[in-house]
C-alpha cells in the first residue's frame, strides 16, 4: 500500500520546476483559505490535477493555509461583509444572486467572498515571490547541502539508498 502511494507520488511529482511548485502553492492558497466545500475548489482541484503542478507542494500548502485561515476568518468576514453591504455594488451582487452557478458558489457568504477575494489578490504576489525564492534556494542552499560532507556521508548510507529505491524521491535531493 505504501509502495503504491509512493509510486503515485513519484509519477505526480515528476515535474519539479520552480514555477510548478509556485503555482501549486497558489492553488493551495485558494483551497486553503476558502471554505473547503465551495464550488470553486472543484475547479481548483481539477486544475491541480490536470496541470503539471507539484502535488506535494499543493498538499503541504493546503495544510499550512487551512491552518492560517482559522486565524484569518475574522478578516475574511469583515472584508466580505464590507463588500456585500456596499450600495454601489448591490446591482452587481443582485445579478449574481439570481444566477444558480453563483448561488451554488455561495458568494453571498461573508467568509466565502472575503477569503476568495483575498486569496485571489495574494495569488500572483505569492507565485512571484515563491518562484524567486525557490530559484535562489536551489542556486545557493541546495547546492551547498549536496556538496556538504554530511550529505555525502548520508548519501553513501545503505539505509538512504533503500529509502531512495522505495520512495523514488531521491532525485529531488
Amino acid at each position, binding site marked *: 500500500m505504501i509502495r503504491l502511494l509512493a509510486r503515485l507520488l513519484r*509519477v*505526480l511529482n515528476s*515535474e519539479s520546476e520552480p514555477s510548478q511548485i509556485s503555482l501549486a502553492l497558489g492553488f493551495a492558497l485558494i483551497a486553503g483559505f476558502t*471554505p473547503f466545500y465551495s464550488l470553486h475548489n472543484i475547479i481548483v*482541484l*481539477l486544475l*491541480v*490535477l*490536470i*496541470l*503539471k503542478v507539484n502535488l506535494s507542494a499543493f498538499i503541504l500548502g493546503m495544510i499550512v493555509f487551512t491552518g492560517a485561515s482559522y486565524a484569518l*476568518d475574522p478578516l*475574511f*468576514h469583515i472584508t*466580505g*461583509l464590507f463588500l*456585500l*453591504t456596499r*450600495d454601489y455594488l*448591490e446591482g452587481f*451582487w*443582485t445579478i449574481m*444572486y*439570481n444566477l*444558480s*452557478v453563483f*448561488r*451554488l458558489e*455561495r458568494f*453571498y*457568504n*461573508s*467568509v*466565502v467572498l*472575503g477569503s476568495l477575494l483575498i486569496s485571489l489578490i495574494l495569488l500572483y504576489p505569492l507565485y512571484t515571490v515563491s518562484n524567486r525564492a525557490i530559484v535562489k534556494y536551489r542556486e545557493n542552499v541546495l547546492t551547498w547541502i549536496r556538496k556538504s560532507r554530511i550529505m555525502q556521508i548520508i548519501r553513501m548510507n545503505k539505509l538512504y539508498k533503500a529509502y531512495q529505491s522505495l520512495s523514488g524521491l531521491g532525485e529531488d535531493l
Partner: protein
Amino acid sequence: MSSLLRARGLGAFVFIVLLIVCFWLLFIDSIVGKTLENVSSRMLRARVDITGTDLSLFPLGLKLEGIQATNPQKPMTNVVEIETLSISLNPMKLLDRKLIGEEMIVSGVKLNTHRKKSGAIKTGQLTSEKSFKFKPDIGLFLSSVENIDTEQILAKEKLLTLALIQSIRKEIPQKQESWQKKLNNLPGKKQFEQYRKRIDQLKKASQGDLQTIISATAEVKSIRGDLTKDINSIKSARDELSRDIALLKTTIEQAKQAPFEDAKRLREKYSPSAQGLGNVTKLFFGEKIGTWVEHSLNWYERLKPFVQRAATIRKQKKVTHPLRAKGVDVHFKEYKPLPEFLIRKANVSVNLEQGELSGKMQNITPEQDVLGNPLMFEFAGQNLEGIGDINLAGSINHIKPEKTDDIITLSLKAYPLRNIELSSSNFPVMLDTGLLDLELKARKIQETIRVDIVAGFTSVRLSAPQQNKKNKLAETLLASLAKINKFTLKASIVGTPDEHYLKLESDLDKLLGRVVGEFIQQYKKRMESELKMAIQNKAGLALTALEQDMTGFNMYNQELTSRLGLADNLLQNELLTGAGKGLRLPF
C-alpha cells in the same frame, strides 16, 4: 501544450469524483438522518430520533421513517411520533441552494406516545415552562373555613373591649379621689353642729326683751340664708355625682357591649367572603385553562423559529445567520423570490384512538416574508368512533415580522371527556365523564393575544375523590357537584404572552356560588359567636371588677344624702316651724 497538461490528472479527477459519488450513495442517507436529528434536537431542546432515511435522486426526494420527537418537559414521552414523512424536492431549486418541497406526505402521526429511553439531551437542560401566574386554590379556601382559631386571632388583635376597660379602670380611682376632696370641702357635721348651737342661742333669746328679739330675727334670717346656701351646694354636688356615676355606668355599659363590636369587626376581617372567593368557576377551571394557555404559548414560542427565522438588517440588507456555517449570509433581491426552505403542501394524517384525523398544511417555511404567503392549516375528523366532529383550522401570518397575525380556530362536537382533573389542589375535582361541545378562537396580533372559548358540557358526572370529610363546605360542595349533569363555560384570555388575564363565566357560578355564599354566612355567624364568647371570657373578670369599683360612689351618694337630710332638718324643723320643736318667733 503537453508540457503544461498532465493527462493522467484528468483520470485522477474523474476517480476522485467517482469516489465522492460512491461515498454519497453509501453514506448520504445516514449523514442526512443524523444531521436532521441533531439540528431538530437542538431546536426542540429534546431528543429527536429518526430510524430510517432515504434520499433518492431520481426523482429527487427524501423519506424519513420512525420520527420520534421528545416532549421537552416529559423526557419519557414523545410529543409526536410520525410513521413516515416523505417530501418530493424540486431539483432545479437545489442548484439555487433552496430546499423546495412541492408536496409532503406525513402519515401515521401519533401524539403523546411513550418512549423506551429518555429523550433528555445531555448538552442542554430541559426547558422549563413558564408557570401560570393565577393559581386559584379552592383547597386553600376550604381550609380557611375549616377551623376558627379564636386564640390566634385575639392574640394578634387589639380589642376595643380591653381598651375601654383599661380606660375606665384608670378613671374610677381618679373620680373617687376627686369626690373625696369635694366631700371634704362641702359642709358636714361640724358646720351643722354650729348651726344647731346658734339656733339654741336664738331659742333662749326669744324670751328676752324687744331689742333681743329684733336682733334674733336678723340672726334667724342669717342662719336660714347660710343653711339654704349649704343645702344648695350639697344638692348641686349630689347632682354632679349622679351625673358622674351615670357617665361611668354608660362607659361600663359600652365596655360590656364592646365584645359584640369586636366580634363583628374581627369576623369581617378574618372570615372569607364570597366576593373574595371570586367566581367558583375560576376556582375549578381557572388553573386548568390557565395551564393550557401557558402550555400553548410555550409551544408557540418553541415552534416560532420554524415559521419566522431570526434575521437582522444591515444597511437595508437582510442578513441571516445560517445554522451551520461561518460568517453571515447577505441576501439580495430575487427576481423570483423563494425561501431557502419551503414545503408548499403537506398532507398529514393523525392517528387517534378513535380514528383518523386528516388535514392539510400549506406554505411551511421560516421565511414567510420572502414567500409572501402565510402558513395555513386545516384538520378535520369526521365519523370518528365515539366522537362527533373535530375541526381545527388556522393561519400563522409572519409575512411582515413586525405585524404578525396568527389565528387558530377549533371546533369540537360531542367530544367525550373522561377522568379529567379540574382542580388539582386540596380539593381535587374530577370530571369523570361528559361530552364537550367546544368553540375556540385564538388570535395573536403582534404581542397581543385574545382567546375566546365557549364550551358546553353535557351528560356530566363530577366527583371529588380523596376529600377531607371533616370539611363541611367540601361536603356541601360535593353534594352540589353530584347533582350537576350539564353546564356551560365561557372563557376569555386577553393580554400579552407574559401578562394575560383570564375571565371565566359559567352557570356553575349561580349554583355553587349560592351554596358557598350560604355556607359563608353560617360560618360568619359561628365565628362571631365564638369570638364574642372568647372576648367576654377574656374581659369578664375586669368588667366585674369595674362594677365593684363603682360601689365606692354609692358611699359618696349616701354621705351627701345624709348631709342634706341634716341640713334640711335644721332648716325645716329646728329653725322655721318646728311645731314646738323649732324656734318660735313672737311675730
